C-alpha cells in the first residue's frame, strides 16, 4: 500500500532562515495526522510544500506515490487545501463558491452543481447556500472553505490551522465536520497549535520545531512521554516563592519554574497521588496562598519535556 504522504529530509530555506530543516513525516492511508508546533516552526511551510505551492531545497516528498516536484499536476488532482484564511469569495453565494471550485477541478456544469449540493449538506450550510458569503459568520466561512477543499473529492485533505481565531462553538462545529469526513475515508493532514485539537482529531501526531521532527506518536503515547499535569501555586508574598518551589521539588515531579512577576510557581506532578501530595507539601510550608490550580501541560511544557528528554 502506498503511503499517503512520504516526506524525507525536507529542506526549505528563505535566505538564511531554515524554515524546514530535515523534516520527516509519513502518513498512511486512513490516518489523520496532526502537525503540532509553535509559531514559526515550519507547519505552514510544510503544508504548502505538500500542496505543491513552493519549491523545496532538498529532500523527497511524495503524495500517494507522486513526486511533488516532478508531477505536481497529479498531486493537485488528489488534494484539497483549506488554509489559515477562509479563501472564499464574499461577493458570491456559498453554492456559487463551491461550484466555481468544482468547475476548476474540471467537472462539467451538472456534475459541479451536484457535488456542490452534496458538500453543502456535509458541512451543514444547505439553508445558507443562496446567501452571499459576505453575510456569513467567521465560522460559516471556515466551514465553506473546508467545503471548497472537498468538492474535488480529494484523497488527502490539507488543513492549515483550520480553527485558529474561531470561537469555541464554531471550533467544535468544525471539528465535527472534520471527524465526519474522516469517517468517510478521507485522509487528513492538519496543523494546529492546540494540543486538545490534535488530541480530538488526530490518530497520529508529529511534533516539529525549527523545521525538524522532534517527536512522533499517537496522542496517548505522547502524553505518557510528557508526564501528567502541572500544578500552579500563587503564594501571597513574593518572598515565599522559593520556599514553595523547594517543597514542590522535593516531590520529585520535576524542576519547578518560578515566575516572579506573576508570583507563581509551576511544577509538573506525577499522575495519581501527585496532586494530593503536592497539596500536602504546600500546606506543610505554612505559606499563605492566593490560589492553587491544576491544569494540563501547555504546548511549551510538552516541548520542554520532549526536548529535555532527548
Amino acid at each position, binding site marked *: 500500500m502506498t503511503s499517503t504522504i512520504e516526506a524525507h529530509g525536507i529542506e526549505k530555506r528563505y535566505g538564511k532562515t531554515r524554515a524546514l530543516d530535515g523534516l520527516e513525516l509519513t502518513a498512511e492511508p486512513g490516518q489523520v495526522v496532526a502537525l503540532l508546533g509553535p509559531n514559526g516552526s515550519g507547519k505552514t511551510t510544510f503544508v504548502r510544500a505538500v500542496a505543491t505551492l513552493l519549491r523545496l531545497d532538498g529532500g523527497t516528498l511524495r503524495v500517494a506515490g507522486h513526486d511533488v516536484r516532478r508531477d505536481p499536476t497529479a498531486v493537485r488532482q488528489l488534494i484539497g487545501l483549506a488554509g489559515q484564511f477562509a479563501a472564499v469569495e464574499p*461577493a458570491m453565494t456559498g453554492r456559487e463558491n463551491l461550484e*466555481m471550485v468544482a468547475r476548476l477541478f*474540471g467537472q462539467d456544469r451538472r456534475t459541479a452543481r451536484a457535488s456542490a449540493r452534496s458538500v453543502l449538506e456535509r458541512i451543514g450550510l444547505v439553508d445558507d447556500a443562496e446567501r452571499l458569503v459576505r453575510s456569513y459568520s467567521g465560522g460559516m466561512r471556515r466551514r465553506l472553505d473546508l467545503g471548497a477543499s472537498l468538492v474535488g473529492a480529494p484523497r488527502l485533505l*490539507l488543513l492549515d490551522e483550520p480553527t485558529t481565531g474561531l470561537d469555541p462553538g464554531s471550533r467544535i462545529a468544525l471539528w465535527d465536520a472534520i471527524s465526519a469526513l474522516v469517517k468517510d475515508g478521507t485522509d487528513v493532514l492538519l496543523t494546529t497549535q492546540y494540543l486538545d485539537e490534535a488530541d480530538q482529531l488526530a490518530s497520529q501526531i508529529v511534533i516539529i520545531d525549527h523545521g525538524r521532527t522532534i517527536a512522533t506518536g499517537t496522542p496517548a503515547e505522547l502524553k505518557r512521554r510528557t508526564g501528567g499535569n502541572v500544578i500552579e501555586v500563587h503564594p501571597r508574598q513574593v518572598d515565599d516563592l522559593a520556599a514553595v518551589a523547594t517543597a514542590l521539588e522535593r516531590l520529585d515531579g520535576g524542576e519547578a519554574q518560578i515566575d516572579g512577576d506573576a508570583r507563581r510557581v509551576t511544577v509538573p506532578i506525577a499522575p495519581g497521588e501527585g496532586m494530593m501530595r503536592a497539596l500536602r507539601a504546600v500546606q506543610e510550608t505554612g505559606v499563605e496562598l492566593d490560589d492553587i490550580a491544576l491544569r494540563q501541560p501547555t504546548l511549551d511544557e510538552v516541548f520542554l519535556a520532549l526536548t529535555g528528554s532527548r
Partner: protein
Amino acid sequence: MTTIAAPRTTGLVSSTLTITRRAALRYLRTPQLIVMATVQMSLFFLIYRYLFSGAIRPLGIPYVDYLAPGFITTGVMFSGIGAAVAMAEDLQQGFVDRLRSLPIPRSSVLSARAIADTAILAVSAALTVAIAFAVGFRLHGSALQGLAAFGLVIVFGFALEWLFVTMGLLAGNAQAAQGLGMIVFPFAFISSAYIPTSTMPSWLQVFANHQPLTYMVDVVRALTLGPHAQQLLGHTTDYFLIRALLWAIGILLISVPLAVARYRRT
C-alpha cells in the same frame, strides 16, 4: 510503486473564464464600488470642467475638448489602483493559494485577472465618455477616429493593468498595494492630461513631455480634436501613436514576465 489517478488539467479557456466570472461578480455585486468611483470621477470632472476652464484659456479650443481625452485616459490608470489592491488581497487572503493548489494551468489566474480588470476598466471608461459628452465634449474628427481613440484607451488600460497586477503581487498586502498605487499621481498630474505641459516649469516639462501617459493622452486627443490637433499639439497623430504604443509594449514586456515570475515564486 503504485500511483493513483491519471494527471488531468482543466482547460486554460474554461478555467480562465471561471476565474474571470468571479472577479466580475465581485465588482458587480459591490455596487458601492461602482457608485463611489463614478460619483468621485464625475465630481472631479465637473470641477475641472466648470471651475478651472476659466483659468485655462489660451488653447484656441474649448477646455472641455482638451480635458476630456486627458480625463478618460488618466481614468483607466486610476482604476488600476483597484486592480493592484484586488490582486494583493487575493494573495493575502489565500485565494491565490487555493487556485494554485487546483489542477488548472497557472497562467489562467493572471490572465483572468487581466481580462476581468480590463473589462471593468472599459465599462468605467465608457461611463466617463458619457459624462464628458453630457457636459459639452464634442468630437472634432470622424466617429471612426473617436472609436479608435476609445479602443486605444482600452489598449493602454490593458498594459497599465499588468503593471498594477505586478505591483499588487510585489506588495503582498492591500495596504502596501494601495501605497504603491500612489505612484499614479505624479504621472497623472505631471502630464498633458489636464493642462498643456508648456505651462509647466521647464525642468518639469522634461519629465512631462516624455512620460508614457502624455503620449497616451495626446494620441487620444489628436484623434478627437480632428483638424485642430496638429496645430495645438505640435506633432502628428502618428508621432504620439507610435510612442504611446511603444510605451504600452514596453510596459507589457517588463510587467508580464515580472508578474509571472513573482506569481510562480510565492
